[in-house]
């Protein structure tokens, strides 16, 4: 059973990793966020739900420091994101966050192994060490067989699993997943979600999951509903 509370009003199970308060964001005349708020605790899986155009992806992008909000505060482990330089936010995303998107995320000219190793290499790891860790993650995500293939040569489900491996390879504290199963059939979608949430729980990473599919949201500990740029929190019980 689900019940609604005000965003941020509930007590969190453990350390608060990320807090976003009263975010506003417009793209030209279009208002994407109009006072959205959320909190994220370490290790929890939060689903951001809402209809198309409600602002859920924008909320994820703001929370991840990809897009700066017009107003409002985002605090990650005591550091305010809006006060950080672009370079510092990039470094934060590289080392602390992982990302999975719906499509167009794997670099087409790199092999799957090189794609997974890429965040580590960007963080300064040596190629061989990076690829060793990448191989481990490909094994965990059960896609070792496509390691040396390019993204154009593999299926959508395999591509998403490679993307999940890439999001987790740096050992992030938070994985941001924007419609990770949006381009997959239900079977592949389920498989990807299972692997993502299991791997995240094993490593203690929190997951922020943007979806409009209740079936995908069911993998979360709680849901935040975004409508017209505003958030409402739905707490789930019995999971």
């Amino acid at each position, binding site marked *: 059973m689900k019940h609604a509370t005000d965003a941020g009003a509930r007590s969190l199970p453990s350390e608060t990793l990320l807090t976003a308060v009263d975010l506003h964001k417009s793209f030209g005349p279009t208002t994407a966020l109009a006072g959205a708020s959320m909190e994220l605790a370490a290790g929890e899986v939060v689903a951001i739900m809402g209809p198309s*155009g409600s602002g859920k992806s924008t909320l994820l992008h703001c929370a*991840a420091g990809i897009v700066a909000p017009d107003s409002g505060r985002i605090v990650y482990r005591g550091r305010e994101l809006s006060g950080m330089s672009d370079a510092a936010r990039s*470094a934060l995303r590289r080392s602390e966050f992982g990302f999975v998107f719906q499509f167009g995320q794997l670099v087409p*000219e790199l092999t799957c192994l090189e794609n997974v190793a890429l965040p580590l290499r960007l963080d300064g790891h040596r190629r061989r060490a990076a690829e060793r860790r990448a191989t481990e993650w490909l094994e965990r995500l059960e896609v070792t067989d496509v390691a040396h293939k*390019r993204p154009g040569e593999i299926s959508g489900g395999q591509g998403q699993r490679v993307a999940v491996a890439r999001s987790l390879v740096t050992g992030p504290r938070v994985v941001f997943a924007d419609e990770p199963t949006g381009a997959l059939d239900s079977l592949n979608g389920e498989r990807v979600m299972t692997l993502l949430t299991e791997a995240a729980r094993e490593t203690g990473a929190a997951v922020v999951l943007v979806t409009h599919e209740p079936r995908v949201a069911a993998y979360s500990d709680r849901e935040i509903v975004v409508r017209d740029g505003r958030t409402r929190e739905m707490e789930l019980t019995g999971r």
Partner: protein
Amino acid sequence: MTERSRRRVGVGRWITDLLLGCRLAVSGGREGWTRTVLTAVGVGLGVALLLVSAAIPNMLDARSERTSARSDLRFTQQELPAGDDTLLIVDVGTRYRGEHVYGRMLQPEGPDAPRPPGVTELPGPGEMVVSPSLEKLLTGPDGALLRERLDARIVGTIGDEGLGGALEHAFYLGSDSLDPDHARRIDGFGTPDDSEGLDPVLLMLTVVILAVLLLPVAVFIGAAVRSGSDRRDRRLAALRLVGADGAMTRRIAAGEAAFASVLGLGVGAVCFFAGRQLVELVTVADVTLFAGDIRPTLPLALLIVLAVPAAAVAVTVFALRRVVIEPLGVVRHAAGTRRRLWWRLVPPVLGLALLTPLIGTIDAESGGGNETQIAAGAVLLLIGVAVLLPWLVEAVVGRLSGGAVPWQLATRRLQLSSGTSARVVSGIAVASAGAIALQMLFAGVSADYVEETGQDPERAQFQVWGWSLGGHSETESALRRLRETTGIRDVSGFSTVYAASVAEPAPGGLPAGVDLVVGDCAMLAEFARLESCAAGDVFMSEAAQPVPDAPAPKPGERVVMSDGTATEWTIPAGTRMVAAHPDSPLQDAARLYVTPEALPPDVLRHGRVEFYVNLDPAEPDAVEHLRTTAVKASPYLSVIERVALRENDRFADIRLGLFVGAVLTLLLIGASMLVTTLEQLRERQRLLAVLVAFGTRRSTLTWSVLLQTAVPVVLGLALAIGVGLGLGAVLMSMVDLSVRIDWTSIGQITGVAAGVVLLVTVLSLPVLWRLMRPDGLRTE
């Protein structure tokens, strides 16, 4: 169904598919339009340059017609008697701060005296008519020094028909004191244009230059047509899904390309007509034009209008041969197929086969007639660069691995799809190969077209010479005024007259003759070592290198002055032999150094004067002051810069043409590369945004883009050096020159080419950074 009706259906099908392609080129909202416009801009830039090339014949004709129409030269030995319809004219053209000023002094001899083109009324004494550009200069702050020289009252403006070009500085100055002996008498302006054709070597240079400059344009039009082909292929896949067959998709693609190229023709025409206005704003090496001079010749313009869309369709269909468009996506044949080398060797081998038979057959005296073969051979060799480069890039990048992340991203990208990058670079590689070959040829033949003058500009940088100023005292006075001129460090000068021996020349020899250098002892001592000198003395020096068969008359011989009066004079028997100073400009021939008292009166009235001027390098306007003093001294004086080497005018024109063409081609290449690079970046917008989202540094992506361009550029330039040296060697052998490689020029050419690439990359960075904004992740 009959064969005929089937054919009609086939033609109808073609038209329908082509029209659908055109519709797709404009539909698809902003995205579709952007793609079409980018292609059209790329094609348009190429078309604009082709139109400029097609306008060259008219451009030369228009300018030549105007300058011939105002010519005051008469090609007849018959003396023209003074009359109501005659005019005395003297060339008083000058230079001002490096720019040529066309000038004539006029004195009508009757009421029907001819008027130069563009002049409605002849200026009176102390008046002048000027070109708009000269008037602007004279009335502006930069013309102060020129105003001192041209201080006559401006009474009119020269019309366009009397000017070489819009920016030409020109004037006609009225006078009433011209000397018929020193001025030219004419009864009309204008001479038929009887310019000679180019000698075969210069013609070969011109042909190769045209090939070198126009081929990159063609290569770039081809590259522009293929921009955005990935998205087009995806769109065509959607059409396959709803029932289009393979042939239909190719026709639809051809329709899209045809539409974009027709739009490109429009863009090119607009760029051409807008751009030609700019020629009225620039003067290159004293050449200025009117915008109206730049009119494409009709046959060439028609050829462009027909050939460009046809080439666009051909290139598109040819490019699609490696692509299978399936209903559920695009399958590239190229993925598993290596590029083949054998057919890529055909054009250069054919080119060599055309050129090698001409080795040793061309010299300046021989007839031409093999320009087509030379042009075809050069073009085929250069096409070799364009077709070999994709193979070379693929072969080399296939072996690259490892390295830092930017290197890995760049090399992997090239391994996956090197065709686009190679195509983008091939234009610059072709231009570089051609430029290297031309540079070798220029360096090789320059000795034949650049002569050593024997002048030593160290001692005197300028020479002032002209008709006699009257006599010795006038020469002395002019010398004094020159010495008092600002910025002149030192002047030496004299009067001179030529004296020919009255004795019959030896059989087969030339008549003996000698130049008399006339001045007082101080003036003569400037040029020769005189131990003692007094009024009435005569001295003689031998030529540093005596000219056989042209002996100088000896002391005691009788000579006749070639001064119009045929005064006879005997070289005094007591003439002393002296040596010219080692740095004297008068060492080239035997000379008589004569004090005026030793000569009959009035001999100097019909002679000439010469002054050698050493300028003060600290005074930047010294030469302007010198010219002003010379004009004030006499309208018959010319100021000439003394140079150690003087280039043949036509050779210099061709060199200038190459320079202007190379600049335009490089601008086109740069602009086209920019368009293609931006198109490539735009296609990767989402991927760039994703990479930035997970923390990729901007510098990493910037370096990867730079390396992705740099690797094909390095390979392209290496290939260009190879082919350029080969072509240069063959061309040099054709004109029987020993092959020499000028590595400095090669360094400069490749440096400029690399600079263009660097500039394009720098210019594309703002767009790259904009595309890196995470906004690219938004899909709504």
